[in-house]
């Protein structure tokens, strides 16, 4: 099937305005009769629930955490982009749009990205009005910085905790609506199924994580704001509870999964220390402005760094990419680190790490300057590793960080199932094959505050409220399915813990579907994952019972979905015979190791349709047409 993104016609800059005029409205008196389910309370979910509640809709919000304030958006450090052009450095909506499309390696929709750039400015105004304490200059104006290699300073920030502040801002407005009674929050409640009635999304089935009760909620529309799926790699910078479950179960109910192979790797994370490792911690990329990346030239060189003389060090980024050096883009420097370690030249106890050395900068600028710039990061590094980054080089290693792929949505953020909307990282829409720094926060809030309130009304206005009630047989069936799955997980009583399977899956994914993918490695993953899945269903041991708080059961359910989703991700990666953005196929690279796109054959969105757990999914394509931009090669030489 050829998918239609439903982008409005007309000149790029006028599409959104025109579309807003064309969409239907819901009468203010009728809004409260419409119930909308919002799953997830991160930037997208909290902002959507708050805005829809404020408009008068009857919103039910769900999150697996104990509070809406804890969603993983909170961990974003760097900042949020907007085309304000406050620094007068010639930024504009067009420029932000262009940078985002180019950064995404021309794999995103023009119309979506332009709209994102347009509403970016409203986001800043909105957040300032909420009392988000953005950084200010001495005159009291909002401060901006350049981020992620952008040539303009368009990033707004709140120290190193921008995500936290934006989320708490959204959480505050959300809380106001909870108080007002327009939003009802169900915390510690995990969505385990999407209920589709006559082809339209009409509710969800959830498990109360405290009592174990499985129940359903009916609504007129469902918004999934459930984040990304990179925990399929086991180790990532995501929170422990981040999973693909909500999205995957919607996928199993017919929603298309788009571009799952687009995953982003962050080069400056703190390396793994052993099998016990549960997550990876990211340090701001800005460290690479003053740190030099190196490994020993000799394989297996176990000498401490200060004993390795200068001429026995390999400053591989400076060597391979003389003009960008240590500032080479995320994917390039990540791959280079992996290559060095795979070559046996990795450092640290595990051998999976490279040095990030500040000795030269400290000599040149003094320790105090470095402390001023990165003091908090050095502290964090020391807290975790017990090493002093001023005295010895830091050790870093790449880690999975963000998912550009997600459920397929059209311009209205509607999935292919009418009534099912997908927002934020959970959808695939705006970042193409690679996301720019400080753009994730922008997208989550854009979707929630400024897009969904308009587009969902257009859908709701076309139907009567409350047509489907929770006593509909589909809900009963959904609950039975979910209960059966829970019972099945608990009854296997095998030998291995869920975590062991998760770790094994992570290894398969990291080795074969990680930073550098090949036809061979992907085929291997597609063979290994079903084997592991089969073993899981025979040999997993889930202790405890289903009618109480059971973290092992929660984990097992999520891992079960990862064990299917990992295969889908690998299949998508295998299908995409090109390298672009976060998807790198070793077969498709330029002589200099740059990603080589194939615009002739792969300038499309790959949207996968579920056909059965052990059946191959069906590929649908949405061709990407560029009306305004010329496709160009991404070059960082």
């Amino acid at each position, binding site marked *: 099937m050829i998918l239609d993104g439903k982008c409005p016609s007309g000149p790029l800059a006028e599409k959104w305005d025109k579309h807003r005029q064309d969409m239907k409205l819901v009468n203010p008196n009728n809004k409260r009769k419409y119930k909308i389910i919002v799953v997830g309370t991160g930037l997208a979910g909290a902002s959507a629930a708050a805005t829809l509640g404020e408009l008068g809709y009857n919103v039910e919000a769900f999150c697996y955490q104990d509070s809406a304030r804890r969603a993983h958006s909170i961990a974003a450090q760097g900042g949020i982009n907007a085309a304000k052009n406050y620094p007068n450095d010639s930024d504009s909506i067009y420029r932000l749009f262009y940078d985002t499309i180019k950064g995404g390696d021309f794999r995103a929709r023009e119309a979506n990205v332009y709209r994102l750039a347009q509403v970016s400015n409203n986001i800043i105004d909105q957040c300032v009005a909420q009392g988000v304490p953005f950084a200010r200059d001495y005159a009291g104006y909002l401060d901006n910085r350049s981020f992620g290699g952008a040539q303009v300073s368009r990033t707004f920030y709140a120290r190193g905790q921008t995500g936290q502040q934006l989320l708490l801002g959204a959480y505050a407005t959300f809380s106001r609506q909870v108080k007002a009674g327009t939003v009802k929050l169900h915390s510690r409640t995990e969505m385990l199924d999407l209920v589709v009635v006559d082809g339209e999304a009409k509710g969800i089935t959830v498990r109360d994580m405290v009592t174990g009760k499985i129940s359903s909620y009916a609504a007129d529309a469902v918004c999934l704001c459930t984040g990304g799926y990179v925990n399929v790699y086991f180790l990532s910078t995501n929170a422990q509870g981040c999973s693909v479950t909500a999205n995957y179960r919607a996928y199993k109910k017919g929603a298309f999964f788009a571009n799952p192979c687009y995953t982003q790797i962050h080069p400056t994370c703190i390396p793994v220390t052993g099998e016990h490792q549960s997550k990876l911690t990211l340090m701001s990329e800005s460290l690479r402005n003053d740190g030099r990346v190196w490994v020993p030239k000799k394989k297996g060189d176990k000498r401490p760094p200060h004993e390795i003389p200068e001429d026995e060090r390999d400053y591989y980024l400076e060597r391979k990419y003389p003009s960008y050096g240590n500032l080479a883009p995320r994917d390039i420097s990540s791959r280079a680190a992996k290559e060095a370690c795979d070559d046996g030249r990795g450092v640290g106890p595990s051998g999976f790490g490279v040095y990030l050395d500040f000795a030269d900068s400290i000599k040149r600028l003094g320790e105090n300057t470095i402390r001023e710039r990165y003091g908090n990061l050095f502290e964090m590094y020391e807290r975790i590793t*017990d090493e002093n980054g001023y005295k010895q080089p830091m050790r870093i290693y790449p880690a999975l960080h963000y998912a550009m792929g997600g459920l397929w949505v059209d311009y209205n953020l509607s999935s292919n199932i009418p009534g099912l909307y997908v927002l934020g990282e959970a959808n695939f829409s705006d970042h193409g094959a690679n996301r720019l720094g400080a753009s994730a926060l922008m997208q989550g809030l854009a979707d929630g505050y400024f897009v969904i309130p308009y587009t969902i009304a257009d859908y709701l206005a076309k139907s009567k409220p409350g047509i489907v009630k929770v006593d509909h047989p589909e809900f009963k069936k959904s609950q039975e399915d979910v209960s059966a799955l829970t019972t099945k997980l608990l009854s296997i009583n095998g030998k291995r813990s869920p975590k062991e399977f998760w770790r094994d899956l992570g290894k398969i994914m990291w080795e074969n579907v990680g930073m550098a993918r090949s036809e061979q490695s992907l085929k291997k993953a597609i063979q290994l994952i079903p084997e592991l899945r089969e073993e899981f269903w025979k040999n997993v041991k889930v202790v405890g019972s289903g009618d109480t708080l059971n973290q092992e059961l929660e984990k097992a359910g999520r891992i079960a979905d990862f064990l299917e989703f990992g295969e889908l991700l690998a299949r998508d990666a295998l299908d995409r015979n090109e390298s672009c953005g976060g998807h790198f196929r070793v077969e498709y690279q330029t002589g200099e190791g740059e990603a080589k796109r194939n615009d002739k054959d792969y300038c499309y969105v790959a949207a996968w349709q579920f056909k059965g757990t052990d059946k191959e999914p069906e590929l649908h394509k949405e061709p990407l047409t560029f009306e305004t931009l010329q496709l160009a090669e991404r070059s960082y030489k």
Partner: protein
Amino acid sequence: MDLKLYVWRQKGPDSPGKLEQFTAKNISPDMSFLEMLDEVNEELVKEGKETIAFDHDCREGICGTCSQVINGIPHGGQDKTTVCQLHMRKFKDGDSIYIEPWRAKAFPLVKDLIVDRSALDRIIQAGGYVSNHTGGSPDGNAILIPKPDAEVSMDAAECIGCGGCVAACPNGSAMLFTAAKVTQLAMLPQGKVEAAQRVCVMTEQMLKEGFGNCSNHYECQDACPKGIKVSFIAKLNREFIKASVK
């Protein structure tokens, strides 16, 4: 290293609870405290026993989910460190470690080390926001904010809502949490409009939830993993006086 753990086990809010002893074997100093508990839980799974339930999520010290009183100190006592960022190198082979949940009437126990902190959410719901509407906000630079004010506001805004202050407070008071939000918003022109109303309803809600009263022990400040200062409580008190004399 090997450690002796005394962990609070309680099946549910109404069941009796007790400290149960576990041995954590072969613990690497590089493990985080939660990873050490993961290892203990993996062993329990092997033995077919129910795992120790504890709250955690981001494991990088920002989400505020992890909540354990370790050897009598919330978050374990390392300066500005949440449980998830506490590492085992701070302990010695053979150490005994007592692990208990946050204890407060306003935080009913859910299971083992997990408590229900929704009372903190309700304090925010009472008035911890600016009642602005989505859309129609003036330009971000329309109201200038002196940098020092923005900095104080940000200092207060760093609160992660973990509830460690309540757990530490001899009175089980949530004053530091409440004061952080009151201060963050009172420092900004956007938040000043509702400042008088806010301080009253938030402190009222705090009491309704069953938190204790602040009696200036400052135990909260030392326990806070984000360095939230008790000077914000003084600021809250000022805001309250201002609101009262208005």
